[in-house]
């Protein structure tokens, strides 16, 4: 114990404990050090609430309370909620769990699970004081705990359900509402039964009459990791303590652009307890690109682990490893850096001017298109007959749209632990979406062969694309190599904003030619993609944006021209929506503006032109992802039904343009808007996934996948796909993902590929295993053929009705007859990436005196093919909508003139909280995609694509003014209303 240490005694989860703490320790520090890992770090600034515990029964943020303040008091963490003895009985189901934990699992309120302990404890405190809370009371109570995954819909439903259970009621099982949607189905009747006004509804699934009912696929199975996340088990990267572990910390640049003239780390190195300080002088200069993408990664390789030039505030300068986090911070302060400050440029259009500061003047970065003008890539693609199509156009419309830099704001920061194992291999335990890419990309940077690296991905506390990037792994590994010790590195919340990744800001100029008969004959898009300091994902995000933005209406002539530009701001990367949502904003707005200008019904105008089943995507070949793509034909398209259902569910034609409905008090005006959208399912001809299924003695199976569940529920739906083939419940599969030593390759979780690509790999592996089971059953039964055998109810049946249980087959194959392991692996790659489709509807109110926009209701109707799990799929929609509303309404990284981010905190940056969410609804219109597993397409990114244009459309409906830049903040709207100086409609094309 040093002089700052002291002992405190407190009661934790009913047991008196004495802890040794530092005076400066927060309660969060003390609890995590004492292995109460359910208490999570998300920000340390009081903004996220992930660290919530109960102090004498009341919720508090443990990062805002000194450990010493808890002395003599009672602390409750989520570890105390369940009766663990019951939980860990054989086949426990949900027995022993607190009703809140049960309800969270049953309703799908847990996605990544990182915020779950805090939500559970806050909800418990609420129900302890108010057994029958209203929805508003639940939302207000939960307002202090941010969730970035769920849109809070199912969390509120879970609390309502738990309250009912605790009151002794017996609520009906939480299940999706299913109905048949035939062309002649009277929609008003159908949708009238489905009301989600209130938070007690489940998603609505509409199926075509001919769709076959399946046993496991299509069911709202609870997440396979639900119990451990509800219990607050140590499932995340940082939930371990290793003997001798050091704490890494990163020194970042205070300048937007500077050369490091001198760097003196001697004082830091001399500090007792500091084991390593690394600067650019200590690490070999190996060029790389940090985006976690397939081999060969798209150029340019414009990064090195530590450089002598910094290109944005927050850029890497040096790293240290020390015995405590506080020592590591102290060491950072002792590093003396002398900078030669260079001119910087923040605006991409200014960066392209002659004489602008050159962001990358280093000679060893190759492949920059125009270094002097900071243009890293110039892309051109076109399809169709330019002259012929433009000649058909009776009208030409052209307009510019701008989007801002949004941050992923996953609640678990980037965190990584590296160590040498007993075989001298480097283990990288990291919160990543791309473990296999990390292993491949890391090897040359640290000078180890791939075979000497093992990457382990525990549960991930959200990523949304930001963990499709090598952010900490290389630095952490260098520190372990330098010290020989385990090293843990975790970003601060401010570093998440300044030193991780974000969404590319874009400027787009669309030009559309239409005929007097409403036909879109030509579309051109000039796009400026601001890739900021480094080019990671810069090429591919813009190519995807162009491809999706020009494919939605698939004009007979389409042209894409793009400049990807360096500036001195923190680097964007992959973010759910990936260029597509920005370009949807532009195209959907211009289509709505044209309809308004021409006096056309916007629905009819879009309907005539959106891409139809059987059409070939004009630019799919020219615009792949960083390379040439593959020809694509639309084989399934439920867009017409999505729109039809949405119009009815929102009562569109009653509200749109209805002056009586619009009018509110005090200058308030209501509006309704809509958009349509498409996305992709994986990257054609590039994404590959593999799966292995192995049979166990009791007829259960291990499913080993490299696919990376970052909270989406992909482990669960992969289990459902395998279970459907094998005729077993999904609970008979033990899913393990992902570990580069033990699971087969998968490119990782991105590009909306897991259901479609990894799912098909699992289906193929399951089919192989099913064939082996049937063969062995035939041997056991003395039959010379396994043909026509079927698997169901954990048994294999012959056509004559005799059967064997899977346990009998397993025991026989492993121990008795023709002994062998029933096991199979399969890989899958697709040269198609079928788009899911959707329609989004927004109702909002505009305060015309202040510019404040209040979003009231958002409905998404989606065609994701066959929905494998309606609960997890609707969770994807609701969480995606929350992020999309943030993008459109309030989230924006803002810089001062020096390039310093002025809002690098979750509070000022503004992530929507539970008690301010609009009413969210998800409806699925099922189709059968012939190339997808059981007819499935993707869903995870689609919800991001259309909210911004739908909101702009609704603001226009309310006020007559088009606002062409997101986010729609009060002042931006106020200025637009004033400059238009009228609410009756202004056309500025």
């Amino acid at each position: 114990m040093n002089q700052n240490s002291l002992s405190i005694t407190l009661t934790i989860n009913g047991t008196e404990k004495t802890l040794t703490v530092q005076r400066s320790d927060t309660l969060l520090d003390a609890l995590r050090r004492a292995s109460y890992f359910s208490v999570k770090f998300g920000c340390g600034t009081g903004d996220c609430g992930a660290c919530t515990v109960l102090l004498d029964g009341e919720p508090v943020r443990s990062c805002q309370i000194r450990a010493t303040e808890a002395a003599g008091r009672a602390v409750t963490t989520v570890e105390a909620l369940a009766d663990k003895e019951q939980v860990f009985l054989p086949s426990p189901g949900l027995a022993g769990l607190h009703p809140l934990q049960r309800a969270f699992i049953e309703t799908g309120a847990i996605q990544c699970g990182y915020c779950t302990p805090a939500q559970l404890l806050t909800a418990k405190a609420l129900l302890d004081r108010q057994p029958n809370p209203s929805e508003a009371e639940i939302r207000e109570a939960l307002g202090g705990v941010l969730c970035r995954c769920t849109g809070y819909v199912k969390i509120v439903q879970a609390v309502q359900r738990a309250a009912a259970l605790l009151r002794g009621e017996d609520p009906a099982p939480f299940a999706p509402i299913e109905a048949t949607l035939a062309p002649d189905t009277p929609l008003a009747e159908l949708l009238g039964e489905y009301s989600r006004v209130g938070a007690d509804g489940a998603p609505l699934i509409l199926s075509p009459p001919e769709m076959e009912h399946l046993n496991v696929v299509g069911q709202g199975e609870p997440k396979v990791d639900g119990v451990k996340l509800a219990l607050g088990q140590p499932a995340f990267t940082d939930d371990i303590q290793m003997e001798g572990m050091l704490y890494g910390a990163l020194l970042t640049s205070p300048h937007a652009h500077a050369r490091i003239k001198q760097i003196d780390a001697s004082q830091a190195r001399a500090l007792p307890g500091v084991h390593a300080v690394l600067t650019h002088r200590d690490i070999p200069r190996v060029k790389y690109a940090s985006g976690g993408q397939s081999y060969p990664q798209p150029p340019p390789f414009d990064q090195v682990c530590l450089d002598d030039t910094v290109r944005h505030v927050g850029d890497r300068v040096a790293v240290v490893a020390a015995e405590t986090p506080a020592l590591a911070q102290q060491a950072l302060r002792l590093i003396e850096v002398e900078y030669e400050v260079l001119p910087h440029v923040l605006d991409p259009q200014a960066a392209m001017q002659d004489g602008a500061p050159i962001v990358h003047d280093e000679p060893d970065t190759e492949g920059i298109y125009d270094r002097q003008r900071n243009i890293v890539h110039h892309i051109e693609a076109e399809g169709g007959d330019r002259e012929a199509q433009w000649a058909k156009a009776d009208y030409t419309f052209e307009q510019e749209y701008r989007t801002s830099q949004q941050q992923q704001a996953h609640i678990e920061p980037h965190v990584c632990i590296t160590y040498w194992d007993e075989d001298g291999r480097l283990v990288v335990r990291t919160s990543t979406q791309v473990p296999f890419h990390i292993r491949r990309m890391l090897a040359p940077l640290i000078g180890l062969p791939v075979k000497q690296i093992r990457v382990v991905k525990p549960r991930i506390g959200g990523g949304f694309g930001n963990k499709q990037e090598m952010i900490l792994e290389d630095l952490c590994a260098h520190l372990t190599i330098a010290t020989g010790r385990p090293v843990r590195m975790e970003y601060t919340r401010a570093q998440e904003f300044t030193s991780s990744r974000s969404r590319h800001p874009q400027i787009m100029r669309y030009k559309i030619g239409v005929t007097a008969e409403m036909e879109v004959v030509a579309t051109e898009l000039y796009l400026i993609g601001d890739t900021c300091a480094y080019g990671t994902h810069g090429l591919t995000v813009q190519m995807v944006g162009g491809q999706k933005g020009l494919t939605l209406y698939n004009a007979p002539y389409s042209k894409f021209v793009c400049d990807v530009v360096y500036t001195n701001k923190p680097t964007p990367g992959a973010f759910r929506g990936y260029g597509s949502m920005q370009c949807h904003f532009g195209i959907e707005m211009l289509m709505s503006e044209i309809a308004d200008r021409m006096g056309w019904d916007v629905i009819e105008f879009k309907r005539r032109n959106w891409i139809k089943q059987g059409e070939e995507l004009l630019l799919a070949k020219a615009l792949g992802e960083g390379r040439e793509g593959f020809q694509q034909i639309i084989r399934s398209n439920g867009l017409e039904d999505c729109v039809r259902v949405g119009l009815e569910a929102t009562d569109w034609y009653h509200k749109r343009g209805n002056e009586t409905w619009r009018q509110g008090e005090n200058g308030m005006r209501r509006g309704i808007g809509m958009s349509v959208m498409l996305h992709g399912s994986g990257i054609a001809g590039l994404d590959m996934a593999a799966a292995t299924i192995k049979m166990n003695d009791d007829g259960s199976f291990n499913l080993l996948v490299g696919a990376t569940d970052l909270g989406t529920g992909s482990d669960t739906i992969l289990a459902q796909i395998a279970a459907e083939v094998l005729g077993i419940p999904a609970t008979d599969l033990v899913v393990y993902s992902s570990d580069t030593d033990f699971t087969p390759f998968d490119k990782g979780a991105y590009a909306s590929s897991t259901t479609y690509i990894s799912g098909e790999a699992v289906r193929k592996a399951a089919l192989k295993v099913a064939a082996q089971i049937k063969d062995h059953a035939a041997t056991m039964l003395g039959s010379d053929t396994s043909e026509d055998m079927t698997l169901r109810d954990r048994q294999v049946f012959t056509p004559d009705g005799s059967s064997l249980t899977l346990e009998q087959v397993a025991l026989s194959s492993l121990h008795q007859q023709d002994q062998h392991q029933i096991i199979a692996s399969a890989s899958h790659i697709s040269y198609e990436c079928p788009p899911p489709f959707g329609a989004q509807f927004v109702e909002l109110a505009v305060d015309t005196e202040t510019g404040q926009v209040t979003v009231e209701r958002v409905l998404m109707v989606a065609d994701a093919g066959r929905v494998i799990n309606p609960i997890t799929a609707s969770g994807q929609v609701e969480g995606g909508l929350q992020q999309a509303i943030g993008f459109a309404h309030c989230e924006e990284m803002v810089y001062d003139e020096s390039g310093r981010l002025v809002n690098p905190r979750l509070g000022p940056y503004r992530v929507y909280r539970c008690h301010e969410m609009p009413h969210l609804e998800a409806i699925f219109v099922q189709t059968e995609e012939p190339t997808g597993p059981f007819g499935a397409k993707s869903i995870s990114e689609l919800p991001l694509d259309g909210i911004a244009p739908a909101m702009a459309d609704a603001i226009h409906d309310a006020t007559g003014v088009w606002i062409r830049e997101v986010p729609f903040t009060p002042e931006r709207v106020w200025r637009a209303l004033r400059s238009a100086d009228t609410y009756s409609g202004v056309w500025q094309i």
Partner: protein
Amino acid sequence: MNDKQTAETWSIDTDTPLQAVLDSPDCPPLLHHSLIGPLSWQARNETSLRTTLKSPRVAPQWIAALLALGAAVTIEGEDGQPVQVTLEEVVQRRTRSQAMALHIPTKGLRWGEARVVRTPADEPIVAATAVVEMKNDIVQQARVALTGAGSEPARLAEPAALLAGGPLNADRIQAVAAAVEAAVEPTGDFMGSAEYRRAMAGVLTRRALEQCQSQEI
């Protein structure tokens, strides 16, 4: 929580957490309104009244509500004896003594609050809180406090004084709103420029006073 309710005033010990204030059946609607939204349940449990008096930016809407209500604070005087001062003196740091109790007038008043926010539960960009004391349809006293129109929550005494001695009607409210707009000296930031904040100070003051035409504490 140590508190005492008299006919006109509610007195609370400054050790009291904000959540206990909110939970009290004596908590008037204006204060209730000021304590929810941006302030989470967790924050209300962790934050004592004393903390908010020392650092008004921790709970600016709450402080603005107290300023509009004309709250007073008991502090420890130089001789160690309790002394009562206005809340403004404490907020403006004209006294550095330890605050011991807060005294909140609660009876016979009308109130209004209007704000502009990015999202409904966000910290307001600008907010105006108004409290008006009426007798026989004549304004006896009016107080307006703003957040987001200066560096800290502040009461604008002079513009609000224009209301005293006459009815609370649209013309007189508009005059106060215009005077507030002229009087504030906001600093712009990424949430709102100085020009925008100034304009909003006027709009929101007008709205807050309009609510006072009908809303009783």
